[in-house]
Every structure is written in C-alpha cells, then in structure tokens.
C-alpha cells in the first residue's frame, strides 16, 4: 500500500506537468483547450524527429522542441484562439476540438498509427529499492522534480515580473488592464505560448515513460482536466496538489482491484467537486427562500 501511495504521488508529478498548460489557459483566458493533449503529443513526435535526424538524446531534443512550442503557442493564440474568444465563450471549444481532430489525424498520416516510445537514458530504468515492498523509480522522481521546477518558475514569473503582473491583471479584468496600457492580446498570446511549451515538455516526458500513438492524447487529457479541477481552477500550485491527489487515488484504486485504476481517480474527483460545491453554497445564500427547487 505504501508503495502504491508513493507511486501515486510520483504519478501526480506527471499529471501536474501535463495539466499546467491547461490550468494556465483556463485561468487566464477561460479557454478549455481540447487540443491540449494533442499538442503535447506533437511535442513528443517533434522530439522523435529531431532524434532520428540529428542523432541526439531525448533530453537534448528538448532544446529545439521547446522554443518551437513557444512559437507555435503564440501563433495559435494570435491567429485562431483570439478570434474564437472574441466570437463567444464557447467558440474556442469548437476551434480546439477542430484542432484536436486535425492534429490527431495528421499525426496518424505522417507517423503511422504505430506505437512509439522515446528512450529515457540510464535514469529511465534506474530505481531505488528502499525496502522489500517499496521501490522508487528514479525517472518518476525526475518528472516530479521537473513539474515542481516548472510550477515554481511560473510562480516566480507571475509574482515577480511585469509579464506576470500583466497576466494576472488581464485574467482578472481585461478591459481595465487595457485602460492601464496593457496589450491584452499580446498577454494572451504569451500565456498560450507558455502553455503549449509546458505541454510539449510534458509530452516528451510522457513519451519517455510510456508508449504513445497519435491518439494517446485523449486518455491523458481527461486526467489532466481532473487534476486541474481537483486542484482548483486558476491555482497553479493547486494543479500540483490536484495531480498528486488524482495519482494517489488511481494507484490506491488499482491496489484494491486492478480494474479500479481510473475509477479510483474518477470517484475521488467527483467527491472533491461535490464537497467543495456544497460547502461553497452552504456559506452563501444562493437561492432566496421560496425560490428553491
């Protein structure tokens, strides 16, 4: 059981990394990015390409992939998402859904539906045998560490830099931010750039950890969403907490019965949500007397 919990915590690191971009885009722009998983996969496939042609390690492949992802995110926001946002709150759902389908199928066309995996180097298989029943894989620890570093970096960005202030102000009140001289569209574009870069990073690490194919995005997407929502929409560190809670719920569920892996996560997800909503409503009078259902 302790082993399961530990593994759950480490798994939480992966989910947090995957969910960071999602959390950022939803927190700043209220966009539910259905293509998030697909973009992460594109990161993995691009790393794969660089490795094939340049004969470098996966880690080194991050060097071209990450800046590329920043640019892709920036352009994506300025071209597609900005217009979609202006058109209506739900329109980005349609755009990102379109992207999800187009990306998934283009990946399938260019890379075949076969399963791939990215090599993770020596750390990939190393583990620390703590006791006879507890083993800690070093790679998962690395992922958790990367997640913490990324989240920490974002935290510093948001709290200490002008861009961070502009991001928070625009997320809170875009109209007034504009009146203070902030170029909201540029701020949004930078937010999306960062979001896509973190998802590409997550994609590469995911691809090192397990096998992937053009449609792996969907399964992981729901877990990423769950992590964001459990941790509280709009809270960056909440995403880490959410990821860990989810990871532990899943691994503990699997301990009880192998088939209960996803179910464990889902049940905890729903429980947390309902509890939180009931507590919030209990604190405020949402409905006046006599108007309730």
């Amino acid at each position, binding site marked *: 059981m302790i082993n399961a919990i530990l593994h759950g915590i480490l798994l939480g690191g992966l989910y947090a990394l995957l969910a960071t971009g999602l959390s950022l885009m939803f927190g700043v722009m209220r966009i539910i990015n259905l293509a998030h998983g697909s973009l992460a996969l594109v990161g993995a496939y691009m790393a794969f390409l660089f490795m094939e042609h340049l004969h470098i390690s996966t880690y080194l492949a991050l060097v071209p992939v990450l800046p590329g992802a920043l640019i892709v995110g920036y352009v994506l926001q300025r071209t597609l998402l900005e217009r979609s946002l202006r058109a209506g709150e739900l329109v980005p*759902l349609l755009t990102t*859904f379109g992207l999800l*389908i*187009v990306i998934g199928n283009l990946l399938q066309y260019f890379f075949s539906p076969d399963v791939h995996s990215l090599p993770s180097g020596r750390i990939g298989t190393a583990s620390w045998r703590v006791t006879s029943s507890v083993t800690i894989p070093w790679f998962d620890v690395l992922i958790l560490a990367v997640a913490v570093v990324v989240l920490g970096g974002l935290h510093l960005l948001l709290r200490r830099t002008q861009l961070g202030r502009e991001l928070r102000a625009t997320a809170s009140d875009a109209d007034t931010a504009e009146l203070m001289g902030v170029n909201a569209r540029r701020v949004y574009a930078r937010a999306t750039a960062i979001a896509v870069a973190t998802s590409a990073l997550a994609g590469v690490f995911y691809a090192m950890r397990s096998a992937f194919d053009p449609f792996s995005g969907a399964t992981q997407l729901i877990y990423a969403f769950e992590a964001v929502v459990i941790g509280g929409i709009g809270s960056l560190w909440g995403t880490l907490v959410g990821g860990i809670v989810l990871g532990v719920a899943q691994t503990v569920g699997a301990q009880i019965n192998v088939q209960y892996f996803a179910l464990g996560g889902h049940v905890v997800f729903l429980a947390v949500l309902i509890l939180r909503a009931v507590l919030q409503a209990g604190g405020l009078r*949402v409905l*006046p007397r*006599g108007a309730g259902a």
Partner: protein
Amino acid sequence: MAFTLGLGVLLALLAFAPLMLSQGSLDNLIQLYFLVILAIMWNALAGYGGLVSVGQQAFIGIGAYAVVFLSVQHSLNPYFAMLLATLIGAAISIPVAAVMLWLRGGAFAIGMWVVAEVFAILISLDASLGGGTGTSAVLAFNLRYTPEQRLRYTYWAALAAAAALLVILFLLLRSRLGASLQAIRDDEAAAASVGVRVLLGKGVLFVLAGAGCTAAGTVILAWQLSIPPLGPDSIFGVNWSAKMIFMVLVGGLGTFEGPIIGAIILYLLQTYVSNAGVWYFVMLGSIAIAVALFLPSGVWGAAQDRFNLQLLPVGYRVRR
C-alpha cells in the same frame, strides 16, 4: 400557421418514407434522426441552459445497454425495451442532476465527462453485459423480425423520438419555464432574486437532455445491433460529445433550428466523405475551425443575422 401545416406535411411524408425509399436510404435517415436528437439535446443544455456538458454519452451508453439488458436478458420486446430504457435513463438523470448541478462552468463540463467514464467502467465490470468487450442485441431483434421489418420499425421509432423531443422542447421553451431559462442565462443571481427557480429550470433541462440522449442511445443500438468494446469508438466515448459540439456550434448555438442544420451537415459529411479515411477527419476539423473563425454564431446564426430570418417563434429578437 402555414408553417405548422408545412411541418405536419413534412412529418407525414417522412412517416411514409419506409413505403417509398430503399433500405439504404432508410438506414441513412435513421442515422440522421439520432444525430438530430443528440444535437437538439446538447443545444438544450448548452444553448438554452448554459450547461456545457462533455458527458452526455453517459446516457447514450445507458440507453444502448439498457435495451440489451431488457430485451436479451429479460426477453422483452426490443421496441418496448427502448421505451422503457428511455424512462430508465430519465430516472437515472434525476439523482445525477441532484449531484452535478451544484457544479458550474468547466467543473460541470469535465465532471459530466467523468460521470460518463464512471458509468462505462461500472458497466464493464458486469460480466453479464459483456465486461467491456462489447455485446449485442442481435438475437432479440432477429428472432422476432426480419431485417426489413427491423429497419422499418427502427425508422419509425427514431422519427417518433426525434419529433416528440422537438415538440417537447418547443413547448418547454414557449412556456414560463422557457422565459425563466432566458432570465437564468442572462443573469442567474438576478433571476433567483425575483423568484425564478434556477435549479428547477436547469433540472428540467438536464432530465430532458438525459432522456433524449438515452433515447438516441436506444436508436443507435437498434440500428447497429451491437455495442462495440470500450475504446475510442465506445458507446460511452467522448467522440459522441465531440460530434454534439460540432453539430451545435456549426449549426448555431442557442437557436432552435441551428442544431438541426448542424446535424444535417455532419450527416452529409459522414455519408459522403467518410471513405476518405484520414482526410475525412481533417476536413471535419477544418470545417469546425473555419466556422469558429468566420461564422461564430453558426450557419443558422449567420443566416438569421443576414436575412433576418426566424422560422419558429422561439425567443426574442430586437431589430435595429
């Protein structure tokens, strides 16, 4: 008045279709009908209720599995089973609504997706229903009906379900509940403060959408006869939500006619382009993106604005 008459004629024509059209056409129309049902139900939730749900496939799955359960395991007449299944779906949607309607926005959207996944997993744990590897109702239908009969009866069931749901939705929107829904959409707190029963309004929509999607699920089962194993094409799959989002947003969110147009568009794409393999999907996605960029209020929304159209007297428009 003339328009209502026209609708009646259309309905009669469609009802007589099995006597005039080929098997292939009937088969196609059934698909169109369940797409229409799904589209108008998702629009009822999102467009009129402000509830974006990425999990209506929960009810599609319930509908399909309930029919298998009732007609295969309990030897009920499959069409009667379809009706019963719809009621079961409606019944299940009540406690789900009681729990989920506490949530808002993104939490509700994703929460419903998770509910669908939970239903899928719970059913897959039941070996008698196939344990996640799929199941079928072939026996229940083919022991009683010839293929031609099955097609005909399924056609009528699908048409009846679509027509009934359209009428119910229309009446609902024209009732006091419809006005209160508009108020809720505009400003929930203000609406509540003047006595609008917010939870009741949303609850009614949720149950209707639950029943409707369940009905669609039963039709899908009657049409394809088998339920595929859990995976991307699963009856509980999020692909169904993706189709609903496509139909409603391309057709026109929050309009009455929009989702029907969106369903027709998706149906046409499916029927005539789907053999293009990968490129079918690329086209689907590209259309979604193009509509989002250039026709954000949907095809019908754009037509309404451009030509000042309104076919059905639902909702209010102020003309400049």
